[in-house]
């Protein structure tokens, strides 16, 4: 493919800008995402708030993306970029797996992701946490938009990463049990949800072990809306009317038909 980002629309956008049409802000995921290696595998966690500026665009979005049967990837940054990047590499991994006749390895996905993001020099705003379990064991990587990677036993990314990291730095130790690991991930994400404005709503968790994946959507839901204080229903007859007239959708369609 032609290498590099296409800047064709820059001039057009500049013109529109001058005329008063502002560029719509890309939906960012704000986000708290985490990953954690424990005794038997890896646990990934994410919040579920997607923001467009200061407005919450999606109260329950999925930030833990499927990569391969043994591999999942959390995404922070620009929502479209994380969605498409992970889907693209997931597709390439499937083909690679068929080609080699082997289960995909986490380092393979990491290399594909980092080389793709490096090629775009940071313009693709995808900050990822990749975790999986392959023949060589459990692995956890973090991948930055410019294409650098780190291999670590526990990682956090997104606007809520500092809040989540404070939980890990005070509690993580090698050889955690499954329940301890999941609880720690939940605590870390909740720390982001409550202390970072860009993160909120629920905690999604994904536990990857040898030969098994447990994707728990909404593992913790600490932001449920409370029951409304009263019923706001208007009693029948509140609005006075002169004469009722009803039209069915079928009639509506005929009325709207504008064909010659």
């Amino acid at each position, binding site marked *: 493919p032609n290498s590099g980002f296409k800047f064709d629309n820059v001039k057009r956008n500049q013109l529109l800008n001058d005329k008063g049409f502002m560029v719509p802000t890309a939906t960012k995921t704000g986000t708290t995402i985490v990953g954690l290696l424990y005794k038997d595998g890896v646990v990934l966690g994410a919040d579920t708030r997607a923001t467009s500026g200061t407005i919450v665009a999606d109260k329950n979005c999925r930030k833990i993306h499927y990569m391969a049967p043994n591999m999942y990837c959390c995404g922070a940054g620009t929502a479209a970029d994380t969605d498409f990047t992970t889907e693209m590499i997931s597709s390439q991994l499937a083909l690679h797996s068929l080609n080699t006749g082997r289960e995909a390895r986490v380092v393979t996905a990491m290399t594909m992701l980092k080389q793709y993001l*490096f090629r775009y020099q*940071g313009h693709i705003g995808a900050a990822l946490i990749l975790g999986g379990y392959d023949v060589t064991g459990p692995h956890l990587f973090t991948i*930055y938009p*410019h*294409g*650098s*990677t*780190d291999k670590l036993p526990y990682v956090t990314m997104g606007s809520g990463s500092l809040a989540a990291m404070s939980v890990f730095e005070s509690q993580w130790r090698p050889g955690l049990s499954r329940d301890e690991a999941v609880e720690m991930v939940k605590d870390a994400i909740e720390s982001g949800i409550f202390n970072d404005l860009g993160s909120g709503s629920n905690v999604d968790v994904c536990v990857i072990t040898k030969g098994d994946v447990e994707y728990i959507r909404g593992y913790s839901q600490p932001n449920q809306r409370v029951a409304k204080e009263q019923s706001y229903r208007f009693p029948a007859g509140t609005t006075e009317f002169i004469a009722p007239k009803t039209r069915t959708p079928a009639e509506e369609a005929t009325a709207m038909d504008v064909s010659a």
Partner: protein
Amino acid sequence: MAGLKPGEINLGTTIMAVKFDGGVVVAADSRTSTGAYVANRVTDKLTKVNDRIYCCRSGSAADTQAVADIVSYHMDLYSSQHGERPTVKVAASLFQEICYQNKDNLSASIIVAGWDEQKGGSVFEIPRGGSLHQQEFAVGGSGSTYIYGFCDKTFRPGMNREECIEFVKNAVGLAITRDGHSGGVIRVAVITKDGVDREIVYGNALPPQYTG
């Protein structure tokens, strides 16, 4: 020469390599930062390019990882095609080619060091512009500025393996104390014809220095 782009992961760093009779000692701190946040406090900046040649990375994390991966690939290819390991000079030359030809788009300052059959231990430094400098010892990264004086005063040609290890631990330790972009642990690797010995020096085991 390009600087770091906003938001790009910065290796900050203190890196160092010293030649001795029989091989080289390479060392680095372990801090990677994004602005004022430490993204990775246990980074390994000593990257293997082949079994007897390592590179010390400083500058942009993404750029140096990408360049090291490409050189590593070329090293494998060379070994397959020639039936023998490439020399340190060849590795350094490859780094230079990439760093020089792409100088406008890279922020990478690299030290290449290792052992080969021909010359024994060698140290090469490739600063940001892409020039190549063979030296007895080399220091690099943001923390290096604080230890030029110490290194120039302490280094003597013909130091043995143990003396070189003490030298790098002291130097990197001093740089870590003074440079905000350097920190964490000191990673040390000794490369000889017999292989690579890696060591970690934790904060509580730093060589003595005045701390007030």
